């Protein structure tokens, strides 16, 4: 192109604010990750900061608390991957089979709703529903609070996650389903395929690329078990089974002022997440060059 900078200056000017914001609030913090290799603590003057190499990382992986936190994070993420991830796919398949469009719309309206609430509100709802004073659990004669039971707690995380976002998650699959050519279904019906056969052999394969993309993004977040949710619902009684990397970083870094250790743990999380996306994307591409996110 023969056009010069002078020709496009207004284009650059329009882009400038976002670029400045990106460099300041996204890329500057990446340089700040180098704090993870120093002895920096809150309130320390920068001329006293010195490099400590991989000290915090070595400490982290010999530290029982951190290893437990890591295990919790992976465990909760895996539970969500196993249960929360397929839930919207299943719901979308079932919604798609609903012949009455009016009813389908009403159901959609209702199952999307919880997505629009913050975890603070959802936590409040759960607290009252499962309250041993006025909650519905009283109906079943439950005396002990579910929020104090470590093993039940993780399942509550999974189910509240499904309650909040499975409905909303169907939208992207319904969009993918709506782009499937109706001719497939017509041909299958003439050949006498049953409803379940049509779901299994037409709908599911046609949305598989969407499933793969979302699965990849989810894998990248495997160390991201959901700060808001865990922070809001957990308490000291279940900390051992509920503490995840993000809540750990918040506690160590922000509450106790150990900035360097917190940064190191955060860096570990970011690097693992990013590498997992790249690796998984590569693996998917090996199987099908057209698939994947990049």
């Amino acid at each position, binding site marked *: 192109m023969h056009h010069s900078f002078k020709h496009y200056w207004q284009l650059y000017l329009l882009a400038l604010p976002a670029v400045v*914001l990106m460099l300041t609030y996204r890329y500057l913090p990446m340089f700040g990750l180098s704090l993870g290799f120093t002895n920096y603590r809150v309130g320390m003057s920068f001329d006293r900061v010195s490099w400590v190499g991989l000290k915090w990382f070595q400490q982290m992986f010999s530290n029982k608390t951190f290893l437990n936190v890591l295990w919790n994070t992976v465990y909760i993420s895996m539970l969500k991957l196993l249960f929360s991830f397929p839930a919207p796919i299943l719901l979308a398949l079932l919604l798609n089979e609903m012949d009455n469009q009016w009813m389908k719309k009403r159901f959609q309206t209702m199952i999307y709703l919880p997505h629009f609430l913050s975890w603070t509100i959802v936590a409040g709802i759960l607290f009252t529903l499962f309250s041993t004073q006025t909650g519905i659990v009283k109906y079943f004669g439950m005396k002990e609070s579910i929020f104090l039971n470590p093993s039940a707690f993780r399942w509550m995380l999974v189910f509240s996650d499904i309650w909040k976002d499975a409905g909303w998650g169907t939208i992207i699959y319904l969009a993918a389903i709506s782009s499937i050519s109706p001719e497939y279904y017509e041909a299958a019906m003439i050949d006498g395929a049953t409803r379940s056969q049509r779901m299994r052999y037409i709908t599911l394969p046609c949305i598989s690329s969407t499933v793969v993309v979302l699965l990849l993004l989810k894998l990248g977040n495997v160390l991201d078990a959901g700060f808001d949710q865990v922070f809001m619902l957990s308490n000291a009684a279940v900390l051992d089974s509920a503490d995840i990397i993000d809540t750990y*970083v918040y506690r160590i870094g922000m509450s106790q002022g150990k900035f360097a250790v917190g940064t190191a743990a955060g860096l570990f999380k970011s690097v693992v997440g990013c590498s997992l996306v790249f690796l998984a994307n590569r693996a998917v591409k090996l199987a099908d060059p057209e698939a994947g996110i990049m």
Partner: protein
Amino acid sequence: MKTVKYKGDKVFPVVNTVFFVLLSLTMIYPFWHQICLSLSDNNLAKSGGFFLLPRGFDTAGYQVVFTSRYIWTAFLNSIFITVVTMLLSLLFCSGLAFLISKSHVRFSRSLKLLVLFSFLFNGGMIPTYLVVKSTGIINTLWALIIPVLFAPYNILIIASFFKEMSPSLEESALIDGANYSTVFFRIVLPLSKPVLATVAIWIAVSQWNSYLNGLLYINDRSKYILPLLIRDIVLSASDLANLEAFSMTNTDIINAATIVIATLPILIVYPFMQKYFTKGIMLGAVKG
């Protein structure tokens, strides 16, 4: 069209409908429970179980919440950050998206890579906190606005929409002597209303619900946003504990009243947002 009917084809729709009726009840009942509980009489509520209607009638829960000095401040603050973030973020993000959508222009491709990378990798909680602190906006509402204005995913979505627009209108305007900012504000933005509306909803919902940034960057009660105040009330750690009314009213009832008040604005705008849901996600699917 002649099709073969199977036995399962008759049973399935019924089972499916029943399933969705039950599912919808699970989604709606928790709200109903809050409404009923919040209006119930303290002693009658204590028996627990399912609420079909409020038991007795008492607005004590609401009175307690509304005597909190901070509830209106928090409401206004939340509205402020939601509206300002929505407007500025849309403007800035589509500004960058406009450049990115023109891949023949210099720096366009490298900027796109920078945006994509920032989507996949980030500096994390503490380094970001230090940057926010050093830019001098900590403990102001701007700390909840400025750092989130740049939204990489939204930029990529808007850019892919711009790219699919027919270039003919824009080209003829440029030939007629219009400059790029005129093209952007007069042609591109008005034609992109569907994608902008969808992204606006995403921004609004995430800002209205955002909690972590408030926790990190705000200390003063006078700058509290709604989710922060709700958490304080729900954990009964707020100044409500000092009020006389508190000892008379069950904490569950106060929680329920808080939840109803905080959810109401969402329920009111929800029907108006609905038609933009699917459109936007379709755009997301295109990108994948």
